[in-house]
């Protein structure tokens, strides 16, 4: 296996990178950090995960922790990230946290993964997300949603004001495009285009149905649908744009297209 160390610039989608820059340049970010520190929000967050989620250790899952160690080396992290498990089938895999980032993996997703390459790719791409700083952005998203919803304005009158630039910087839009970066990191880790396409559909199709579509291969039966989506009428384009604002998950055909572009740029091929 390769000893090459990838940096975020190697796999991060341009839109993801630009939006993250915008958020990080926000003049109010420092005051938000101070607010979070003053209220020990990260300590509470850490306490909650440590006390309510099972942390994967080497003793209980040596294959998984070995992969995390390898992924940390591949994407330039000093230490492998912590991995917590959850039953929540909607969670899939995600990263979160501030100074101590971690991966949250649904055991439902784990049970859908039926080969080691796919498991490696999923863990490696989440580790890459931490290397790119996605965990902190997800943490900010959580803070934004929860603080706006829960904290009474008469106690912290400035919270919404502090968070306003983050909202206008487009965090929701970022949540869509960051998945494209993960797809590219998956490809870098596995060097396997069909598998990288398959993982886009990991939570959307059963393994049996995925096999019928020959995803990512020359006889890919999803390609026609993808082309129809990308070349839709003006009306359907408007509908797609509106939905992009309402939903925080990227469209599957968009992810597929962006992955193809990335693989082509790296001189890769379908097979």
């Amino acid at each position, binding site marked *: 296996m390769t000893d090459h160390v990838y940096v975020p610039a190697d796999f991060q989608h341009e839109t993801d990178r630009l939006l993250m820059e915008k958020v990080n340049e926000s003049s109010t970010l420092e005051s938000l950090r101070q607010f979070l520190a003053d*209220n*020990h*929000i990260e*300590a*509470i*967050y850490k*306490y*909650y995960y*440590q*006390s*309510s*989620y*099972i*942390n*994967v*250790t080497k*003793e*209980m*899952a040596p*294959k*998984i922790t070995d992969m995390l160690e390898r992924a940390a080396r591949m994407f330039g992290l000093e230490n492998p990230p912590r991995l917590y*498990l*959850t*039953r*929540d*089938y909607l969670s899939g895999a995600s990263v979160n946290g501030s100074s101590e980032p971690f991966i949250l993996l*649904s*055991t*439902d997703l*784990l*049970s859908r*993964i039926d080969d080691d390459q796919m*498991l490696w790719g999923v863990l490696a791409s989440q580790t890459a997300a931490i290397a790119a700083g996605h965990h902190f952005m997800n943490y900010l998203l959580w803070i934004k949603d*929860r*603080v706006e919803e*829960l*904290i*009474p304005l*008469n*106690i*912290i009158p400035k919270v919404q004001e502090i968070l306003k630039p983050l909202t206008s910087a487009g965090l929701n839009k970022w949540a869509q495009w960051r998945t494209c970066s993960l797809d590219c990191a998956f490809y870098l880790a596995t060097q396997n285009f069909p598998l990288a396409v398959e993982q886009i559909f990991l939570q959307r199709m059963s393994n049996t149905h995925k096999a019928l579509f020959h995803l990512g291969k020359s006889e890919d039966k999803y390609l026609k649908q993808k082309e129809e989506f990308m070349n839709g009428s003006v009306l359907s384009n408007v509908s797609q744009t509106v939905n992009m604002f309402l939903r925080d998950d990227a469209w599957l055909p968009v992810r597929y297209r962006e992955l193809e572009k990335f693989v082509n740029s790296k001189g890769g091929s379908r097979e």
Partner: protein
Amino acid sequence: MRGDIRHPKELEAMTSLQKNPLFSASAKAFSKWLEGAPAVAHSLSRKFPVTDRTHPRLFSLYRTAAERMEMSQSCPLFLDFNYDIKAEVLGYNKQCVLVLTSASVEILSDDELLALLGHELSYIKFDNLKYLGMFRALDTLPLPRTAADALVAPFLDWMHAAEYTADRAAAWAAGSKAAVIGMLRAAMGLDSATPEIRLDQVSYESVPELPDTAATIIGRTLLKHLIDQTDCPWGVDRIHELSMYEGID
């Protein structure tokens, strides 16, 4: 059942809660608010009743759990179609129902189901339903917002310790601590079907208490929100705590 089922921390937290003047006032308001609670009607219209005719095996387990907990009366049991592993008592006093998810019945062993049912029955046995209901409804209680916020911290302390008590009761209902641990572990996502994980090697470490400095109203409010969203709140910590209980093997 032994007399030491109620965890000392729960009794301590309950005393502290009851001494809080805000709590006394809101408890009265809450009792009125809950009178005639629609939990039974709501369940009758949306969930599936478990009786000796509709689901003999499950009903028999429910009766066994109640008998082992020395409860002469329990409440109606309903099944809800849901992927989570959990159960909860809805309602208040004689208006309550126990709702169990379908995934629990499909995934848990009989002993683990006894544990899950016993855990919930303990809230009825120890007359904790009102407090449980108040904890869940703190955000929507007809109280001034600042009063509700001030109650979050003592309620969280009680709720956390009440889980310890309920887990001990669950062990009595199931006949072993191992069944409770299996149930909690499954609720957190790990069961015998989870690939790649050696269940016998899972460790449950003690989690340091939150420092007092972290007990700001904002911090506790966010923690309550996180706990509300979790199917098995404090699960790791609870397994650690239960493993130290000497009342049952």
